[in-house]
Every structure is written in C-alpha cells, then in structure tokens.
C-alpha cells in the first residue's frame, strides 16, 4: 500500500512539474512574463508530494534516497527543484531558467520510475557517515550544475534574440554569464567535497583512498573539466558564448559520470545505480 502511495505521490509531483514546465515554456516562447510566477508556484507545490514520496520510500527501505536509479534520480530532481526555487526567489530574473531546469527534473523522476522502482537494500559498504556527506554534496553539485546549464542556455537563447522584448527583461548577457560562473563555482565546490568524502570513505572501507575505479576516474575527469572551465575564465578571460558552450560540454560529462557510466561499466559504485 505504502509502496503504491509513494508512486502516486511521485506522479502527482511529476504532474505539477509538467504543468510548471508548460508555463515556463509558454512564458519563454511567447515572451509572457506574467506566467513565470504561477510556474514557480506550481514547482513549489510539486515539491510537497515529491518530498512525501521520498519520505515514504525512506520509511519503507530504512535508508536514505541513494540506492537504485529510482531513488537517486528522484532525490536529485527534488534537490534541483529546491535549489532552483531558492535561486529564483533570491534572484527573480533567473526564473526563466526554469524552462531548462523543470523538464530535466521531471524527466529524471519519470526515468527513475520507469527503470527500477523496486526496493534495493543497503550493502554493508554503504553504511558509513561518509556516504551521507558524499551523497548530499553530489546531489547539491548536480543541482548547481543543472541551474548553471539553465543560465548558460538562457545566455545562448538571449544572444540570438536580443531584440525581443521578453529577452530584454532577462538579466543582461553579462549578468547571465556571471551567474553561470557563480553556479559552476558552487558545483565545483560541491563536486570537490563529493570526491573528498568518497575518497576518505574508500580508505576506510578498502584501505585506499583512490583506486582508479571507473566512476572515480570519470568523476575526476568531470572535476578536471570544471577546473578547466574555471581556469579558462580566470586566465584566458573566456566568457560569453564560448564559456556557455564549455559549460554545456561540462554538463554532458557530468551526466555521463553520474548516470550513464554506472550503467555501462562494472564498478564499485555501480551498486547505487542498479
């Protein structure tokens, strides 16, 4: 019963997120600023059934949302939407980024539901305080990166349609670019903490803090790419379109690392995403 209930709450949340996406898409496509507020409100309401679904799942499994695709994707989507709402509340001009953030969030949830909603239990290696730190910061990193993708995409969209009234109401290109930089900065910090916590945990579990496991290595590749982005901005003064496209590349690698590699390669980390 509880298991069905959480699926129902998940679908209710997805429903809200889809309607929110429609409002965002309408706002951005037809340049109607008025629909941005209801879009944010719908996303905020959607967070409630989503949180209930995560809480029910937590109660059933007895562990946090970090085992199996369904839990990982659903909790990542929740953190992303929450981070986005906080960012949109603090910086109202970033609201149109919802047109990128919301569909990515509900697609993550729906994908998780279709792939593996069955319960997976916690293996002994995952019972560590470092796992909590590792997972929380990984989700925060994913959220920050998705928002940075949103601002970078808005930059690219606005650059093409500078004459449009709607896009004129968006933050200036420079400001959008600066926000992308800032959110990637957040993402880089969170990703660094994820790697550090994971390394300390690996040392406790297996006696070495780095084993060149495929996911570890991909995580390092992604971290290096973000490092490259930050150095290119600082030293080579890369900004604007070039930086936005580099951000898109970084995002693709992040998705590969978090969601695709655990599928295709055998790794110590694969367990969480089976």
């Amino acid at each position: 019963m509880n298991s069905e209930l959480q699926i129902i709450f998940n679908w209710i949340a997805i429903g809200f997120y889809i309607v929110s996406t429609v409002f965002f898409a309408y706002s951005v496509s037809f340049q109607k600023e008025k629909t941005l507020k209801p879009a944010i409100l719908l996303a905020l309401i959607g967070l409630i059934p989503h949180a209930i679904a995560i809480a029910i799942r937590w109660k059933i499994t007895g562990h946090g949302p970090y085992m199996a695709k369904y839990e990982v994707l659903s909790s990542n989507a929740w953190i992303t939407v929450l981070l986005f709402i906080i960012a949109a509340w603090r910086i109202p001009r970033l609201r149109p980024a919802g047109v990128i953030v919301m569909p990515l969030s509900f697609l993550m949830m729906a994908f998780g539901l279709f792939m593996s909603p069955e319960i997976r239990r916690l293996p002994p290696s995952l019972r560590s305080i470092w796992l909590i730190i590792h997972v929380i910061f990984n989700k925060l990193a994913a959220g920050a990166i998705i928002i940075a993708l949103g601002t970078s995409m808005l930059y690219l969209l606005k650059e093409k349609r500078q004459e449009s009234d709607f896009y004129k109401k968006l933050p200036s290109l420079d400001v959008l670019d600066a926000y992308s930089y800032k959110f990637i900065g957040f993402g880089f910090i969170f990703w660094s903490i994820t790697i550090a916590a994971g390394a300390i945990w690996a040392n406790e579990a297996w006696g070495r803090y780095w084993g060149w496991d495929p996911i570890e290595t991909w995580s390092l590749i992604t971290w290096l790419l973000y490092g490259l982005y930050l150095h290119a901005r600082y030293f080579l003064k890369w900004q604007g379109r070039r930086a936005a496209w580099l951000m898109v590349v970084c995002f693709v690698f992040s998705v590969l690392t978090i969601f695709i590699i655990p599928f295709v390669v055998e790794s110590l980390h694969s367990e969480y995403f089976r």
Partner: protein
Amino acid sequence: MKIIERFFKTITKPKFVITLIILTLIATFIGVMVPQVSDKSPSYFEEWKLKSPKTFYIVNLLQLNRVYTSAWFLALVFIILLALGYSLYQQIKRNIKKREFAPPAAADWDFIDTETVIEQESLIRFMRGRRYFLKNRSDDVLVFSKNSINRWGGVIFHSGLFLIIIAALVGLAFQKRGFVQVMEGEVFSGMHEDFLVKDLGALQQRFDVGFKTRLYKFNHEYWETGQIKDISSSVNIIDKDVKTKEKTINVNSPLKYNGINIYQSFDYGYALTFVLKRPDGSETVTHFLLDRPDRRTKPFVGSTDFPQTPYIFRMKFYPDISMNSYYLGRPILYLEVFTGNNMIFKGLVIPGDMMDIEGNKVKFEDVRHWSGLIYVKGVDMSIAYIGFFISCIGASIIFLLPYKEIFMSHKGSMLSLYGRTNRYKPLFAEEMEKIKEELSEQ
C-alpha cells in the same frame, strides 16, 4: 640558475597550467578507455597480444595499459607538483608583500550628487551595514573592502591539492597491499609469497605481514531481496606463537594490528575440498575456491585444473538443494571432469561421495567458507585528509567570497565612487548601482 628560474616561470604560465589540466584529462580518459593491467586478468592481455599484436605492441610500449603507474603519467604528476609548488610560492610571496595603496585613475570614478554632505563616519557606518570594512583612510578617500580572505583562497586550495599529490606519490612509492583468500580453519602465513595479489609501492620489494592470521569463522547475511546485508570474518592473530583473542573484521571496520590494517573484501564464497587417491596409494588434496554469484538462484561456478593430474574440473555448486540460498544447507555439486576435450565424468555429488575416475578414487571431502582479506601497510593518509579538507575550504573561499574593494571620496555633496572585484564583475556592478542609489537617497 637562470634556466631553472625560466623553467619554473614557464610551468606556471596560465596557458601551460591549462595545458597540464588538459593533459591530465587526456591521461585519465585513456585510463578509462584502454583496458588497464590493474583491472583485467593477465590472460586478457595474452589474448589481446595474440589477436592484434601490433596494437598491443604500441599500447604496451606507450604504457597505455598501465596509465597510472606509467613513467609519462608520473612525470606529468611530478610537473604538476612542481607547478603547484612554485605557484604557491609566488602566491604566498605576493600575498605577504604589503600592497601599495593604488587609487584608481580619475576617469574611472563615478559621481553622484547626494545633495547634502555625508560625513565620513556615516559612510563608514553605511558600508559596515553592507559588511564592507574600512581598509584605508585619508583626508578625502575612504577605501572599503569585503572578503579580504579571498586572496588566500588560491593559496589554500592549491596547498590542499599539493598535499593530496604528495600523499599520492608517497603512497605510490611506499604502500604495501596484498589480497589473500583464506578458508575457515586455515592459517594465512603472512608471508609475501602467500599473497594471491600484491600491490607494492615502487620502492618496496616485499610485504611480510609479521604475524599469522587464522580464519576462525566467516559470516554472511542477506536481505530478503538477496542483496548482502553484512559480511565479516572472525580471526585469530597469531603473533610469534602467542595467540591473541578472537577479533572480527567487518566491512568499513578493519582490524588494526602492528601497523597493518586488515580489511574485509567483498570476495568470498565456498571452498570445495577434494582428495584424489591413486592406485599406488599416493594422495593429492586440493581446494577449489568458488566465488559467490550475484543471485542466490545461480550456482557457484568454477573451472580449473586438479593439480598434479591431467584433469580439469568444471563445477556448479549449490550450497543448498533448494537452489535458492547462499547458506550451507544440503549442498549439491554438478561436476564434470575433462582430460583435454574428453569428458570422463559427469554427475551430481554431495560431500562425502567417492567417485571413480580412470581408476583413481576422488572424494568430495568437505565444503567450507573462504573469505577475501586485504592487508595494507599504508602510509599515514592524514596528509591526504588534510589536503582534501583545505582544498575544499580554499575552493569555497575562492568562489563564495569574491574580493570586493570600494573607493569613496567626497567634495561637498559630490560623492565619487569606484569599485573593483576579482570575480562576477557584472554582479558587482549591479551591487555598486544599488549602493549609489541608496547613497543618493540618504
């Protein structure tokens, strides 16, 4: 001397630093794309060598199949270490040096008319409300700054990376690591030769643990879904014939003894013992160690030579006849015995059964657990931990606390302002506009 100086200046040039990052990216990318010696069995590479000798030759020559221990990768890491070290030295020197107060050029100032004269003290209070602190004060110019710690962010972050790389290199040079499979009731000698797999640092020759370990009991528990709930090994440490108390090694909770950490590996299974008695009365005892399958409905399988005989044993072992359990109940083994390609025996056997194979009596003697144990004589990893911690702090300082500096000068009701920052300039420009607005409203 000049050459050395020029070398260090070159490796810390921004473009060179970016090249180093790209090279590291390429190296790690090769590491995940090309099968690595540490991940695959030696037979995999033998097969590769036979199938495509030219590709294998190039890969082997360039050490692309052992990237992370290759000479070129270590050289790259060493150059990164030098670049980081010299860059740190430069940054620290620059930060310690007292900065000269450099006012902006007259053309860069913005002017606002506040209509009334704002006292310097009011400006200081106003800026303090925005968490800007007075950095410099002269008769007509006030200099405020925020997040002064930011200039140390780079030093802190890169120091952390420097320590992590040092720890990694020390580990690569001095670490001793070995894996062994121990059967219940058996003793691991602790000798270098008896490890199944060894991973020694470049400057290490042997890994003798210095004590023996007897596996007393291996425990395994499962969730109702069949996933592992817990595994642990109960062991006795035998140090110079003095038997210590029984200790338990759990996942995430290693046993520490005499500077050696013993970790519980995820490799475990059942060991099947066979005794082969020849017509002349001579005996050979052997143990086949079978790995746990990923599902409990699957058998524990193995295919291996029987030592000192021409026989190959192919085994499918179920710990319980229900064929749906990892626990030992009523075990059953489906055995096939080959000599070359000829099958000379096949059938179901249980412990205690005797088989007649080409005149030899082969007895399925017993079944026991075996457990994988990892022995590590590690280098103290506190350096790496400190490195992780301070690099995260450094990254936070760099990106969360950008340095901001605002100059204010007033003549009568005319207030001149100038601001500068090292990050997120358009956002700072917006902040400056707000400050100007609020000041003109005062």
